[in-house]
């Protein structure tokens, strides 16, 4: 079986990979945390977050700090499973098993 077939199409984008990498090791992160980790514009980051949310890979909680909105992003168990499978597929490609 070809491990490339196991690569998840949703994780084709560098930015979506970045978002998932950060969220898998943190309980939750806000928009600015993600922006400072990944080199990306606001609009671009928002679009990719939306895509991940639509696929139910991340959860969005809208909150407030004082009067400022503070939106928190959390990885879902489906998202974490999908991302781990993607990582495994990448590792298999590197090891040349397939």
């Amino acid at each position, binding site marked *: 079986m070809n491990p490339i077939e196991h690569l998840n199409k949703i994780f084709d984008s560098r930015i979506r*990979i970045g978002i998932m990498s950060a969220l898998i090791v943190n309980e939750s992160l806000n928009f600015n*945390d993600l922006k400072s980790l990944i080199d990306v514009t606001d609009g671009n980051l928002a679009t990719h977050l939306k895509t991940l949310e639509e696929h139910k890979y991340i959860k969005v909680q809208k909150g407030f700090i004082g009067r400022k909105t503070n939106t928190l992003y959390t990885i879902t168990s489906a998202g974490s499973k999908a991302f781990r499978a993607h990582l495994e597929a990448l590792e298999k490609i590197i090891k040349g098993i397939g």
Partner: protein
Amino acid sequence: MQTAEKDESLKTLREIHSIMDRSARFISLSGWSGVWAGCIALAGAYIAHNWVVAQRHAYYSDAQFVLLALGVLVVAIIGGYYFTARKAKQNGQTLWNSASRQMLTNMAIPLAAGGVFSFALLLNGEEMYIAPAFLTFYGLSLINGGRYTLSEIRYLGYLELILGAANLFFLGYGLLFWVIGFGILHILYGIFMWNKYDNRQAEE
């Protein structure tokens, strides 16, 4: 298997690990912050020592010693903040991010408990237990916060714990143990970290 695909996958995995690491750990702690904190602690201990010696002719109250300790803490934090902010700027990292918040919260909890504990010891007239208690709580705080920063800080935490425990068996020597724990260990740790991280970065 195509080498191009392998290279691409390797690059992606490296990026993933880099983001995981940067998002979960605050890596901009500067070695200079440790050296600075150690020097300030030594200066504070020197003043405290002079006060203890002068105690035969003059009276220094507990409150004055507490103010001295707080003063040392504030000056150490200001300097530590300055050096760390400078390093974060060099790294292009933000100072206030999820990792640094986690680190500070996890350090603050044992420290706050230690503060209350030490204050109660002082009120009960058990001054000789303050140094070992605070060294112990400080060690726990470093071990707890160390999960969110460069892992070497945890070893500093273990050493502080050992010192705190040792101090319990040599109760009259609190000041000496503070000099070792807060002064000398911080300076050695700072030089070690500077050598390992900051120095290498400067060369690059």
